[in-house]
């Protein structure tokens, strides 16, 4: 693509990516369920001053938080919906829903909104009714034997 489009694309992407980051910060600071935030004051000259009382724990209430972010694209104002799930102080899920109207913004938002999951876990195949599994290619006996041979040689050396 030509240079102008490339610059616009980069700018659009940066904007699209920055929005949720800003939103996360906004969400986490505005929905706090204060745990044990403490302040202390000391006076030597009668004027209260805050002192550092060491690290404090901030607890975020479990739940799902949704907010719509607004930003200005080179083409005009756009919005993007962000939903975060918080459990035990950890963001366990995050989704972004494109809401752009201009075609260029739609494209950038969709590219960012490719699905993302912060962590996947395994489930036993035996517990599911699965006929097929896809993974890396099962290795032939020759390869497995070679690996074993290397391990034996390594132990002996």
């Amino acid at each position, binding site marked *: 693509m030509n240079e102008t489009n490339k610059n616009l694309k980069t700018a659009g992407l940066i904007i699209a990516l920055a929005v949720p980051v800003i939103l996360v910060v906004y969400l986490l600071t505005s929905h706090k369920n204060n745990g044990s935030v403490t302040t202390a004051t000391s006076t030597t000259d009668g004027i209260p001053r805050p002192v550092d009382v060491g690290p404090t724990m901030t607890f975020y209430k479990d739940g799902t938080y949704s907010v719509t972010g607004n930003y200005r694209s080179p083409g005009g104002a756009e919005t993007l919906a962000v939903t975060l799930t918080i459990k035990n102080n950890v963001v366990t899920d995050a989704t972004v829903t494109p809401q752009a109207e201009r075609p260029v913004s739609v494209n950038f938002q969709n590219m960012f909104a490719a699905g993302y999951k912060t962590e*996947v*876990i395994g*489930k036993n*195949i035996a517990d599911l009714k699965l006929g097929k599994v896809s993974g890396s*290619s099962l290795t032939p006996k020759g390869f497995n034997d*070679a690996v074993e041979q290397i391990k034996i040689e390594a132990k002996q050396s």
Partner: protein
Amino acid sequence: MAWHLEFTATGTTWKIDVFDATRSSAAVLNTALENQIRERINQFEQHYSRFRADSLLSQMSKTPSDYILPADGEMLFNLYQELYTLTNGLFTPLIGKVLVDAGYDPEYSLKPKKLSPPASWAETIDYQFPRFTMKQPAQLDVGAAGKGHIIDLIVELLKSKGLTRFCVDAGGDMFYYTQDNQALEVGLEHPDNQTQVIGIANITNQAIAGSSGNRRRWANFHHTINPTTLQSPNEIRAIWVIAESTLLADALTTCLYFVPPQQLQKYQFEYCILYADYSVQFSEKFPATFF
């Protein structure tokens, strides 16, 4: 009544399942068909396997000359040529030398020697199907897409027999063909625990290819090596691609170790990338549920 065929070929386990249960399908699901399938795969390996000293590919790697490729080379090398350009040489048929130097040679010595980047396409190859000219000796390897292509060829063979619903699986890369829109559920294998899956995908008349560095590992390598860094990528644990052909799905799983999905936008595919921290990134329409 399903027909299940299982055998070793192309360095892995093949599983072919035919779900047709009619009288006419029963007439073709016999030893003759099994032999035809195995012979077709054998012929493909005789053309393109780097693990056979007398294959066409091994000959091409040793002796510079003009070669005429068989018909089954056209789609394979055309795709290699396109992807070489799109990935700026990171996806290359000249990776053979790097794999061999790393120890993944026909004897499976698995003893790494000193690695150096492979030669470029321009210095080594002049290709316009059917002519494939090797300008200098260089170890070719088409393992990143070859298995996908032979799977597609076997799918065509089964379709030509009038079969209407089957799955051709070679070591976890597979194509599922159906005439009745019934989807096939495919578990996405947990790279660190082969008794588990991290999600389930659904495919209908599509291929799914899975790649991971979990099985073919030795020293600091697995079987996917970046030709410029000369290392195996470790920040990605597994990749799956769903596409209209197994050739494309197989090739793209390798590409996605090296370039972002956006760089491959010219192709129609859905993908899922599992990172070392167990987060996943997947395309908007990747048809799977994750656990």
